């Protein structure tokens, strides 16, 4: 398979072989990988689609947060601004749709290595999916298992600030993808630096106009009053 989109017959993706077999009302979805197999029976699905998925569901859902460690920290001057691109990991998900276009999550599997991190201290911190990314000034190409994030950094602090990590909340983050390609992205992010150790992350609008939004799995996105993330435990 060469990109996100509809799954038909048998396809190979990142070491996984997905097959959709059976005729009539019930079809069998099977994913095989080295040392394992995952099967589901689906009743009258209209179509199965491969989409990028928020990187917080594997091996179990234990957090909503993704923390990106910048491999090259950024130094922002007082009241300064910067626009960078970073990459975040995405899982691959198989969604099924019925004739009323209602959907359900059938399968999620990883492409990238999964690691978690504690942001803050054990008693007051939070667990986040860990990822390392080089900050880039030009929009990077994404491959399978990656999504591009545009980050606008604005400092309100009177002095230089070093930024070495960015915390994103998958409950507010929105994923978009271009069918037929491995291009995935999120909405634009604005990081407002309040002090050398704290920042607020705001979530903006979609950047890639031709991209389609990923349907959120049920329960992932509860209603929120404030659509922002506070980074309270350091920026380095």
């Amino acid at each position, binding site marked *: 398979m060469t990109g996100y989109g509809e799954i038909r017959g048998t396809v190979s993706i990142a070491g996984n072989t997905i097959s959709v077999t059976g005729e009539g009302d019930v079809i069998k979805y099977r994913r095989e990988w080295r040392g394992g197999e995952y099967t589901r029976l689906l009743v009258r699905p209209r179509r199965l689609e491969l989409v990028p998925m928020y990187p917080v569901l*594997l*091996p*179990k859902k*234990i*957090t909503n947060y993704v923390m990106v460690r910048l491999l090259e920290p950024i130094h922002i001057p007082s009241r300064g601004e910067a626009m960078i691109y970073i990459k975040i990991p995405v899982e691959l998900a198989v969604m099924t749709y019925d004739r009323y276009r209602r959907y359900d999550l059938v399968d999620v599997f990883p492409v990238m*290595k*999964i*690691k*978690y*991190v*504690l942001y*803050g201290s*054990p*008693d*007051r*911190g*939070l*667990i986040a999916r*860990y990822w390392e990314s080089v900050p880039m000034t030009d929009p990077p190409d994404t491959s399978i298992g990656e999504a591009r994030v545009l980050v606008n950094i604005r400092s309100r602090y009177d002095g230089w600030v070093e930024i070495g990590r960015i915390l994103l909340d998958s409950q507010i983050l929105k994923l978009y993808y271009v069918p037929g390609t491995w291009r995935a992205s999120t909405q634009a992010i604005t990081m407002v630096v309040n002090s050398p150790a704290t920042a607020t992350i705001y979530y903006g609008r979609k950047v890639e106009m031709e991209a389609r939004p990923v349907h959120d799995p049920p329960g992932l996105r509860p209603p929120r009053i404030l659509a922002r993330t506070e980074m309270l435990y350091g920026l380095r």
Partner: protein
Amino acid sequence: MEEFNFTSAFYWIREVNWPGLLMAVLIIVGGFLIASLLRKLIYKLMIRVAPEPVSRNVSRAIYYIIVFVAGISALGSLGINLTGVFLAGGIIGIILGFALQSITANLFSGLFLYWEKPFSPGDLVEVSGVQGWITDVTIMSTRILGLDGVKVRIPNQEVFQSRIKNYSMTAARRLDFIVGIAYKEDAEKAYEVIRRVLDEHPLVLVHPAPDVFVEELGDSSVNIRVRVWVPSKGMLWYEVYKDLLWKIKKAITEAGIEIPFIQNDVWFRTPLEIRIKNEEDRRKKLQSSSRSTHRFEEQC
């Protein structure tokens, strides 16, 4: 039918302590008013910081205490001698105090637990040696669903006095393992193998970073301590605990590093003579067979 005696009625009315009676009525009415107001006020203040049953019970107790004090004061203003009542009340109080000692202790422990909040329902805890999830915290006892599936009720006094470990209060917790390798092995190679296993495990946190070091030169092995941090949520730590030690063992064995058994070298002061039993048996057999052959030849 006895006629109504106006003289005696007038006498009774004249004998009544009207100012005292008026004072008693005022005290009773005032007492009820103050008690009702305080009950509402205390309930409204307490509901902000304490659970509803505690707020309700405390405000109700204060209401009854005020009404009781008002009643006693009213009787006093009527000139009724309450020494006997107080004496009887005191004796009953002492008896009740002894009888309800444990109940009172549990009640107050429950109140303190409500305020201190060392745990909430759903938390994974260890209380009085019982590990499990808190299912309910009442004014008298705490109920825990043990990890073995057994429900345990612990009186609040015992909970209050015991050491409480709450595994759900923190985002992450540390797990420790000891891995012993043979003395002839390279500990740094073992570090590398162990770190690779830790790096591959998704639930071993990147930060706080895992710690791997030689902790002890043991009797028969070099003991390497492995410290990792894992998410506290649910029973994830237990899954990591089960999974990780076996993976480390497998990786170490695959890397050709020996994990020794416990060995004891015994040294003797004097040299020992070692006899091989089979050899001796063979010699005896040979000797006996040669003797019988000799006898047979003699007979012939």
